[in-house]
C-alpha cells in the first residue's frame, strides 16, 4: 500500500511537470506537425511569391528519338514538337511558345538537355519534362534489370569464423526499425532517468529522504520510486508510440507498407522487449545511485544529456560499423556488457547470426545486473542517505580512484 502511495506521488508530481509536458506532447507534435504545417506554409509562401506559370506551351526537339509524342504530358503546359532548333527558335521569337527543350542526338553520351527561353519557365515545367524523359527511358529497360537496379546490391557478410551470415532481404528495414525504436526508448529512458537523479538528489538534500526512510523500508522506497518513474516513462513512450503508430498507419496507407503487423510478427520482438526493459531499469538504477552520491542536485539533465551523447556514439558504432564486422571481439563483448547490450545485441541480431549462447548470456547478465543493481542501490541508500558525502567532482573521483588503487596494491602485497 505504501509502495502505491510513493508510486502515485512520484508519478503524479512528474507527469505534471512543465518540462515533462512540453517534451512529451511537444516532441510528437514537433515530429508530425512540423513537416505538415511547414510544408503547407512553404507552399502558400511560394504560391504568393512566385510569378504565375506562363500558360503558353513549350517546344521540344527530340533528336535522340527518346520520347513518344503520344505519351506527352500536358500539365502544367502543353508540349509542341519541332523538327529542328531553327523552327523552334522562330516560334519562340514570335511568342508562340515560352521556351523550347532540345534533346541532342548525343544524349546517351552527354546526358544533356538544352533549354532556350526569354524568361525561364517555372520549375514545374522542368520537372514535367524530366519526369517524362525518365519514364520513357525506364520503359526501354527490361523490368528485371530495372528491379535489380532499384533494389541495389545485397552484400553478404562472411566472417572467417564462419558465424556470420547473409543479410536477409529485409535487413535494412529491420536495422532501421531497431535503431529507431532503440533511439526513442533510450531518449525516453534518459529523460526520466534524469528525473530519478534529480528526485533522489533533491530528497537527499532537503532531507525528505530521511523522513521517508524512517517511515518505509528502503526496498519499499526504491520500488515505489522506480515504479512511479517507470510509469512516467511508459506514459511518455505511450504518447510517442501513439504518434509513431499514426505515422506508421499513414505510411502504410500511402506507401502500402504495413510496418505494425511486421513489427508484431517480428521474430526478435521478445528479445527486444527484454533488452530494452532491462536497459531502461539499469538507466534508472544508475541515475538513482548518482543522485544518492549527490553529484549536485539539479544537474540531472546536464548529466543525462552527456550520457545520451555517449549513447549516440554507441548507436553510431552499432549502425555504421557493426553490420560490417558483427562478430568481432568488440562486438561480442559489447553485446554481453549490460550497459551496451541492448543496442549492440539487437543490431547484431538483425545483421548477423548471433549464437544462442550469446543471446542467453547477454540477457542473463543484463537482468542479473538489474537485480544486483537494486540491492546495490539499497545499500547505497542506507550508506549515503544522510552521510555528508563529498560532492562528486573530477578531482574527488581521481583522488578516490588513487586511494582505491593504493588499497588494492596493499592487499595484493
Amino acid at each position: 500500500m505504501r509502495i502505491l502511495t510513493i508510486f502515485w506521488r512520484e508519478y503524479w508530481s512528474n507527469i505534471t511537470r512543465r518540462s515533462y509536458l512540453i517534451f512529451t506532447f511537444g516532441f510528437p507534435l514537433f515530429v508530425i506537425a512540423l513537416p505538415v504545417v511547414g510544408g503547407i506554409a512553404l507552399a502558400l509562401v511560394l504560391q504568393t511569391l512566385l510569378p504565375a506559370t506562363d500558360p503558353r506551351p513549350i517546344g521540344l526537339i527530340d533528336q535522340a528519338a527518346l520520347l513518344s509524342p503520344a505519351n506527352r504530358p500536358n500539365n502544367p503546359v502543353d508540349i509542341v514538337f519541332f523538327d529542328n532548333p531553327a523552327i523552334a527558335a522562330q516560334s519562340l521569337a514570335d511568342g508562340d511558345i515560352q521556351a523550347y527543350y532540345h534533346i541532342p542526338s548525343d544524349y546517351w553520351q552527354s546526358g544533356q538537355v538544352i533549354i532556350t527561353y526569354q524568361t525561364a519557365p517555372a520549375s514545374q515545367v522542368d520537372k514535367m519534362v524530366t519526369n517524362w524523359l525518365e519514364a520513357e527511358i525506364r520503359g526501354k529497360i527490361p523490368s528485371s534489370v530495372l528491379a535489380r537496379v532499384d533494389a541495389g546490391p545485397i552484400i553478404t557478410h562472411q566472417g572467417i569464423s564462419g558465424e556470420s551470415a547473409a543479410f536477409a532481404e529485409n535487413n535494412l528495414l529491420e536495422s532501421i526499425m531497431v535503431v529507431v525504436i532503440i533511439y526513442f526508448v533510450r531518449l525516453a529512458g534518459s529523460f526520466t532517468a534524469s528525473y530519478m537523479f534529480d528526485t533522489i538528489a533533491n530528497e537527499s538534500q532537503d532531507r525528505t529522504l530521511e523522513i521517508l526512510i524512517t517511515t518505509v523500508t528502503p526496498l519499499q522506497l526504491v520500488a515505489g520510486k522506480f515504479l512511479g518513474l517507470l510509469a512516467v516513462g511508459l506514459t511518455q513512450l505511450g504518447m510517442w508510440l501513439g504518434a509513431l503508430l499514426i505515422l506508421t498507419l499513414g505510411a502504410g496507407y500511402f506507401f502500402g507498407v504495413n510496418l505494425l503487423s511486421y513489427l508484431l510478427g517480428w521474430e526478435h520482438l521478445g528479445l527486444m522487449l527484454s533488452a530494452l526493459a532491462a536497459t531502461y531499469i539499469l538507466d534508472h538504477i544508475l541515475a538513482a545511485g548518482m543522485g544518492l552520491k549527490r553529484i549536485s542536485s539539479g544537474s540531472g539533465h546536464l548529466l543525462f544529456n552527456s550520457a545520451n551523447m555517449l549513447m549516440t556514439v554507441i548507436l553510431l558504432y552499432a549502425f555504421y560499423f557493426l553490420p560490417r564486422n558483427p562478430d568481432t571481439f568488440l562486438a561480442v563483448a559489447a553485446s554481453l556488457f549490460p550497459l551496451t547490450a541492448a543496442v549492440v545485441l539487437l543490431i547484431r541480431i538483425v545483421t548477423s547470426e548471433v549464437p544462442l549462447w550469446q543471446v542467453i548470456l547477454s540477457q542473463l547478465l543484463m537482468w542479473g545486473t538489474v537485480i544486483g543493481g537494486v540491492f546495490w542501490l539499497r545499500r547505497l541508500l542506507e550508506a549515503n542517505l544522510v552521510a555528508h558525502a563529498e560532492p562528486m567532482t573530477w578531482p574527488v573521483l581521481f583522488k578516490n580512484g588513487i586511494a582505491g588503487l593504493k588499497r588494492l596494491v596493499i592487499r595484493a602485497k
Partner: protein
Amino acid sequence: MTSTLPVPFVSVRNVRKTFGSKEAVTDVSFEVLPGQVFGLLGPNGAGKTTTIRMILDIFKPDSGTIEVLGGSISQARKDRIGYMPEERGLYPHMRVLDCLVYLGKLKGLTGLEARRRAVAFLERLELAGQHRQKIETLSRGMTQKVQVIAAVLHYPDLLIIDEPFANLDPINAQLVRDIILELRDQGKAVIMTSHQLNLVEALCDRIVLIHHGRVVLQGQVAEVRRRFARNVLHLSGSGRLDLLPGVTHIERRTAADWYLTLLPEADPQTILRTIVSSDAFVLDKFDVALPSLDEIFVQIVREQSGPAGPLDTSGTATLEPNPLPTIRST
C-alpha cells in the same frame, strides 16, 4: 506489594558508532520513559544526530543495543514514531496540505483521516490560510510548524524532534510547546534536541549531554542543576559582608544581591548561621543559587574541550562544579 517500573520507550545501551576513522558516538547509554520529555543536548558535532539516527534505525550501531517501544525497531514500531529532522524534511514544491496528507498516508493513515487531522493541526497552529501554499513560499517559522505537524500527524507514541523551536517566535514556540506537553501528558515520550536551553529547562524532565560522542552528564533537570549549584549562595539584603570561613569569593552584583562562592566542603547552613548572628548584614533572602542549563552546558563543554575529563564506568563524567561566570538565583 510489588511495584513495576515502566518499560522504557527508548533504551540505548553502550552504543558506539564510527564513520571511517572518526568515532561519532562512544559508549552512549540512556533511557527515555513514557510520559517523559527528554533533552538530548550537546554542542554541534557532538553526536546527537547520529544517536537519533541510530534510534531511528537509519544507521546501525557498531556495538551496543537500542530498543525502541519495547523491542528492536520494526516497521510496526516505526509507525509509532514521529520524527522531525532539524530544518527541511518537506517537499518544497508541494502544497502544504498535500505534503502533510502524503506523509500521513506513509505513516499508515487513510487519505481522508490524514486530511482531517492535517486540517485540524493547521488550524491549531494558525496555518489554515496557508494550506494551499507551496512549502517553498512559506516563512521559516511557518515551515517549522508544518514540520511539527508532519511529525505528530499520526499521534506517535514516541516523538523525536531536532530543534523544534528554531525559527519560532515566542507565540509560536508556545503553540509547539503545548503540543509537546500534551503528548507527555498522554503518556507518550518525546526526545528533543535544542540549543535553546532555557526552553529545554522549562520543558524537559531529563537530559543527557553528549560531547565528542560521549555522555558527559545526565539526569533529571532539577537534580542536575542542584548538583552544579552546591558551592554558590545567593543573599539578598543590606549591610556589609566580610570574608567568612568556607567562603572563597564574594561578588556584589546589585545593591541588594550578593553571591558567595564556597569551598567544596563548606556547609551553607553554617554560613547562614554565621551571617544571621552578625549585626553587619540584614538578611532578607537566602537561597542556594542554581545555575541555568546554559551555564552548566558552557562549563562542561569548555572543560571537555581541553584534555578529556575523567569518566566513570557509566560513561558520565565526574566533573567538579566550578564557580560559574554568572549565577541565576531560584
